């Protein structure tokens, strides 16, 4: 289990988080705590590795999630011993700990004030700036969070994580054009991220279903993004799912689709024949993935169970439409 302590824990399932946090006392007992002090014994003890400190950080996050504040505090203490009080990342971690143990909104307000005082002293403290934005969001102040986040991406425009967060915030407020722009910025930084291509396809699809003006354009763009995500990743369930949704809708709306006017500078809408063929490909691939994953075939077990079930439902809905 120690290997998954090296991965960021926020996307783990609650069961895994519980398991990790239950292992915390044992891990804390086993790993050395006095690493980094310059004593004579450091000559023969094993060299400290970056993994050790990553483990501490992730262990602390898992413990906070499950409510094991004692172990979390111990992790924080050891990290502080090693890296000092004024480490920016540790300042953010300490704030996170205070957020987690805060009893009421007044305590949270105090944490927020603390973040702000840190940021007035040192505006370039990115981890704390991110914590402040996350806390604003958590306190249900999305407008302020967006303002703060736009300032942050102005200051560090190559921070893909911040752009992705900004896009999610915009989308949660229903501001699709802005959310799409932010995701395109993410893709400028990480052009090969297949999941972000799929995410952009999803946001474009949502934008196409939400409003009528320009929905064709959004839909065509979404279709292209899903194609790109599949191009970057073989057998990508999420990409094929999106491709199927987008092509289904494109086929539905195709008869009304008008030829683009002369002034239109964007890409022309996809050929209807191509769309139909891609729809068939997506259907075939989805049913293959569902069949192999449900059949327990070796080498097809990495898919998320919920995603496979969703794909199955989509296929069933399709089949019901045909038989009707």
């Amino acid at each position, binding site marked *: 289990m120690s290997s998954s302590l*090296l*991965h960021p824990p926020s996307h783990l399932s609650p069961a895994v988080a519980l398991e990790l946090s239950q292992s915390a006392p044992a891990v804390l007992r086993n790993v050395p705590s006095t690493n980094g002090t310059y004593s004579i014994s450091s000559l023969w003890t094993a060299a400290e590795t970056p993994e050790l400190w990553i483990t501490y950080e992730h262990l602390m996050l898992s413990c906070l999630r499950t409510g094991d504040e004692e172990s979390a505090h111990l992790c924080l203490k050891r990290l502080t011993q090693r890296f000092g009080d004024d480490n920016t990342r540790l300042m953010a971690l300490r704030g996170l700990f205070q957020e987690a143990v805060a009893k009421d909104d007044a305590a949270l307000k105090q944490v927020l004030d603390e973040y702000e005082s840190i940021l007035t002293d040192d505006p370039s403290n990115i981890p704390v700036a991110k914590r402040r934005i996350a806390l604003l969001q958590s306190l249900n102040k999305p407008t302020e969070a967006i303002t703060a986040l736009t300032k942050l991406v102005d200051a560090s425009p190559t921070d893909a994580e911040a752009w*992705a*967060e900004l896009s999610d915030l915009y989308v949660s407020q229903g501001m699709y054009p802005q959310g799409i722009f932010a995701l395109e910025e*993410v893709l400028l930084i990480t052009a*090969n991220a297949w999941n972000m291509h799929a995410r952009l396809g999803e946001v474009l699809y949502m934008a196409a279903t939400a409003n009528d003006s320009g929905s064709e354009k959004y839909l065509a763009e979404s279709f292209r993004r899903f194609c790109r995500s599949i191009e970057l990743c073989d057998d*990508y369930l999420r990409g094929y799912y999106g491709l199927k949704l987008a092509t289904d809708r494109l086929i539905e709306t195709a008869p009304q689709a008008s030829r683009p006017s002369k002034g239109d500078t964007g890409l022309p809408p996809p050929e209807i024949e191509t769309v139909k063929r891609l729809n068939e490909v997506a259907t075939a691939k989805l049913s293959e993935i569902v069949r192999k994953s449900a059949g327990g075939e070796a080498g097809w*077990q990495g898919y998320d169970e919920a995603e496979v079930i969703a794909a199955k439902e989509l296929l069933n809905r399709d089949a019901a439409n045909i038989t009707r």
Partner: protein
Amino acid sequence: MTWISQSVTGLGLLFLAHACYSAHEHSVLHSTSAASVSSIASQGIDTSTIASLPLDISIETVAAVFTVCLGLVLGTPGLRPIQWRVWAGKIEREGEKGFMNGDGTLDKDYIGNPFKVLESRPGFVDIRKQRKEFAEWVREGDSAATIPKN
């Protein structure tokens, strides 16, 4: 597959050792005979006859080396994908199981989808929401565990 490669390598090493031993014995025998000859004839030693080995020892050496090479090649683990989409597809399709070592532990440099952090975003983690969700999950788990008993 491992036992085949290991036995082939072992066989090759055995042949190699045998070839070395034969070569050593041959040179010892040859030098003693040559010494006795030279002591009788008091002539200069013909170096080319000492250097040349019988053909069967040479063939055995070469064959043994090739056998060892074959065994080692057979024993190499499967190659990693070098194409982006194949590699990404392997991560999505197989998950952690696709990156296990021979002894069933996870490969040390396996990190899954490296771009997943752009969606989980550890820098912006909302710990209070996570705690709430976890508490709900525990409650659900409790109720789900107690229902079958009732």
